[in-house]
């Protein structure tokens, strides 16, 4: 393929038409000493078949992409109905710009409005925005918003929050004068505790907790909400496995004030970590403190209903440094994928997929815990992820599972928690067949025999 439509001859004519002689003349406003003399040192142009061969060769080196896997920890392999990608690939959606001109962007705007509504329904909250970059930045923005809402600068964060999310949050708040403090952790249940957190006081802006948490344990959100609200703090709930919305009580219904989530589970390819989509929902009264874009209903002179981007006064275009966030481009197309997924699976399907995930994970957990030397250190209820304590170093075990059994067995927690050398985090979704689970169990058994 080639990108540039105009032929060299046409371009020469156009140059003459604007009164120039050479292409160089177009760049006369760049001081001569700054103009590049040598050609860029990038590879020579490739034709279409050559380009595809190049990427096929690289893709073939990603062995992990093509074998049974029990990796979760913030990115989940769920089935994506074929229609999602077919619809995303309509130029009308994927090549359109941000819908600043509503008369020629109603398709995108209506889809955003549906996305916002669905996010409200799943999180159990009243307003949701048009998306954030991903779950990790959404947590960080939630913390910043909690500060704006409460005007308090201490935030208590669960140690069971995804370590990369925590890291991102630390980066985001490092210049906002916000202090992050750790909540407690009950190693037996695997849940977050606030009791020993004397930290929770009238200076606390928010308590941030993930559920199911990084170790797969379901938190008692109602209890955490009560504790937070008692001191006037907000409860921020983070969900990395959005599929759990179909199974667990809505965080909003448990008292959460801000719910953020990673929406990748809803029909979005793993794609080595991105693009994904951040979900962000809160209570009506905090709407004007929200980051990100919002689509809303509007009517024309004839009273016809349409949709527009609204409450832009919160945003940087108008507010500049006083904006609620610096976000501009968000994850529109990925939010659309999630919207199509939620609508295709629908009320029943979202619950049925969640049910299958939970059941298959329960089956896997049962089988593994029955193995000699293996244990499940945490007792709390879980959705589709759980920690396994192996009788040997998890990293070696996983390496051998991959090499000898062609299975990606999960995540070695040592990657984030050096003090947990034998622990691995196992995730099971509706796509993991019983045969795959049994092969994992057999592998764990035989490789530790």
């Amino acid at each position: 393929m080639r990108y540039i439509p105009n032929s060299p001859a046409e371009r020469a004519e156009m140059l003459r038409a604007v009164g120039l002689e050479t292409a160089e003349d177009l760049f006369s406003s760049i001081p001569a000493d700054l103009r590049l003399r040598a050609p860029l040192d990038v590879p020579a142009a490739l034709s279409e078949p050559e380009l595809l061969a190049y990427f096929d060769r690289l893709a073939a080196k990603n062995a992990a992409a093509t074998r049974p896997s029990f990796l979760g920890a913030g990115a989940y392999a769920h089935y994506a109905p074929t229609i999602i990608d077919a619809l995303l690939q309509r130029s009308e959606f994927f090549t359109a710009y941000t819908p600043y001109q509503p008369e020629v962007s109603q398709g995108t705007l209506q889809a955003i409005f549906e996305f916002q509504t669905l996010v409200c329904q799943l999180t159990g909250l009243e307003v949701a925005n048009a998306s954030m970059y991903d779950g990790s930045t959404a947590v960080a923005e939630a913390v910043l918003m909690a500060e704006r809402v409460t005007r308090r600068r201490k935030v208590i964060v669960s140690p069971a929050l995804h370590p990369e999310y925590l890291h991102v949050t630390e980066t985001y708040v490092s210049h906002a004068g916000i202090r992050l403090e750790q909540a407690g952790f009950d190693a037996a249940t695997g849940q977050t505790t606030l009791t020993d957190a004397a930290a929770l006081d009238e200076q606390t802006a928010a308590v941030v907790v993930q559920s199911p948490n990084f170790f797969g344990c379901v938190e008692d959100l109602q209890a955490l909400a009560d504790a937070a609200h008692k001191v006037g703090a907000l409860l921020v709930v983070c969900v990395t496995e959005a599929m759990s919305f179909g199974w667990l009580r809505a965080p909003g219904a448990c008292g959460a004030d801000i719910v953020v989530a990673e929406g990748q589970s809803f029909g979005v390819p793993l794609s080595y970590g991105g693009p994904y989509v951040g979900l962000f929902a809160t209570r009506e009264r905090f709407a004007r403190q929200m980051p990100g874009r919002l689509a809303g209903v509007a009517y024309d002179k004839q009273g016809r209903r349409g949709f527009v981007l609204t409450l832009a006064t919160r945003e940087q275009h108008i507010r500049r440094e006083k904006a609620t966030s610096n976000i501009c481009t968000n994850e529109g197309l990925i939010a659309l994928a999630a919207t199509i997924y939620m609508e295709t699976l629908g009320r029943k399907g979202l619950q049925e997929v969640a049910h299958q995930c939970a059941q298959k994970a329960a089956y896997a957990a049962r089988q593994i815990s029955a193995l000699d030397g293996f244990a499940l250190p945490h007792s709390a209820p879980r959705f589709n992820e759980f920690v396994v304590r192996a009788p040997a170093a998890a990293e070696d075990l996983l390496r051998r599972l991959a090499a000898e059994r062609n299975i990606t067995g999960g995540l070695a927690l040592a990657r984030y928690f050096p003090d947990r050398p034998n622990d691995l985090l196992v995730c099971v979704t509706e796509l993991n067949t019983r045969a795959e689970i049994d092969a994992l169990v057999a592998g764990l058994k035989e490789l530790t025999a």
Partner: protein
Amino acid sequence: MTSKATPHVTQNEALIFERSQAGRQGYRLPPLDVDETPLDELLPAHLRRDDDLAGVPEVSEVDVVRHFTRISTWNYNIDLGMYPLGSCTMKYNSRLNERVARIPGFANLHPLAPEADAQGALEVIYELQQHLSEITGLAGVSLQPAAGAHGEMTGVMIIRAFLDARDGVGDGDRPRRNVMLIPDSAHGTNPASAHLSGFTVKTIRSTPEGQTDLAHLRELCAAGDVAGLMLTNPNTVGLFEQSITEICRIVHDAGGLVYMDGANMNALVGWARPGDMGVDVIHLNLHKTFSTPHGGGGPGSGPCCCTAELAPYLPVPRVVKEGERFRLDDDYPQSVGRVKAFHGNFGMHLRALAYILTHGPDGLRDATEAAVLNARYIAHGLAPDYDKPFAAPPMHEVVFTDKRQGRKGVHTLDIAKRLIDYGFHPMTIYFPLIVPGAMLIEPTESVGRQELEQFIAAMRAIAKEAEEDPDLVLNAPHTTRIGRLDEAAAARKPVLRWRPTEQAATA
């Protein structure tokens, strides 16, 4: 030349919630193949979802496909034609790159896959880093930021960290350089990102010629508290900052660093490199200059590139090459930290790399040349009818105003809406803020001469209408399925989600 626009019948379509019918299903799952555990053993009742997902629609696959196919037809898009949004660089999105991004070996790769089994993906990231470094003339690159604003935040945080280290300031104990200078013409994300990184924003004036006011810059730098400058080059009126070298010198002499907003790199790729100008940090918009699709508002990708001196402060992990192997390296103690989980918007990295490899060095240079030529052609074509606030020849985009049409009460918004009737998406309007009634036009290299001429003809026809029949323009668009929407009312009583009650209202 047949007219570009024509009316045609389109499908209407309600909200999916208004279409929902109890009992409809669009999916089927494989049967559960493990023995079920009683629910009570798995999850106590008080933790269970108990609302049966009330309100979530129940529709069939045909419903979903028709729903989105229908509403999609209400969108303008690049495959329909020129999308002249200034500053947004709406260029052609190659289908080939979409195909590349969907190769299963990439699309199905988990971000936490063992490095040894993800070498292909790490190589993609590494290769793209190398090419962006060559294109910008800056040694250090991180692909972690998810969009331009994200890259800005990353960049100014790097400046923050570097200065603190250099000046030996810890948290708040010794006075910090807290001022970030930003031209009044800058995009709103610049001050917002600076603020997010703890800086105080001071605004620099632009000259009547549309250049940074050096005198004002010197004056502001004199204060001694300047951490840096955030500059867009070419700037947001489409002009190259002639004194860029001098500007960088002034800021550097004042002990600050220079951040460049790379949103307008489509005017420079292959012709000039920010690194050679004295720029210390820059972000790129892969979704602009490198043609990754905008997707109706994202995803984007905003790589951050910086000098070797600043590289230690880039986000972690970084992708490094050791011999023939690639790995993620977390060991940068001075790093600003992580700005996003995992490795950035990898799917966009694939597309941008495909874009660079398809062009090659000559192609990249050609594309820039074609983009600037197209903008110049429009500048030339519209000058007779529209007020061009800056005399200097524009680079990749050109700004006009509604000054002349304003006399008849026809303003930029009206002209923009009227363009729709002629089959074009409007240009960027009322940006930059320093130009009253700004119309910022960026054709990009993806438009052929024929369509440029149709655009010029349309704009000239509108100018004529503004003279002869202002109402025609004031009430535009006349050909869309809805007219101008009352945005003020929408903001006063925002309806941000569907609720069963809404249904009645729309029947």
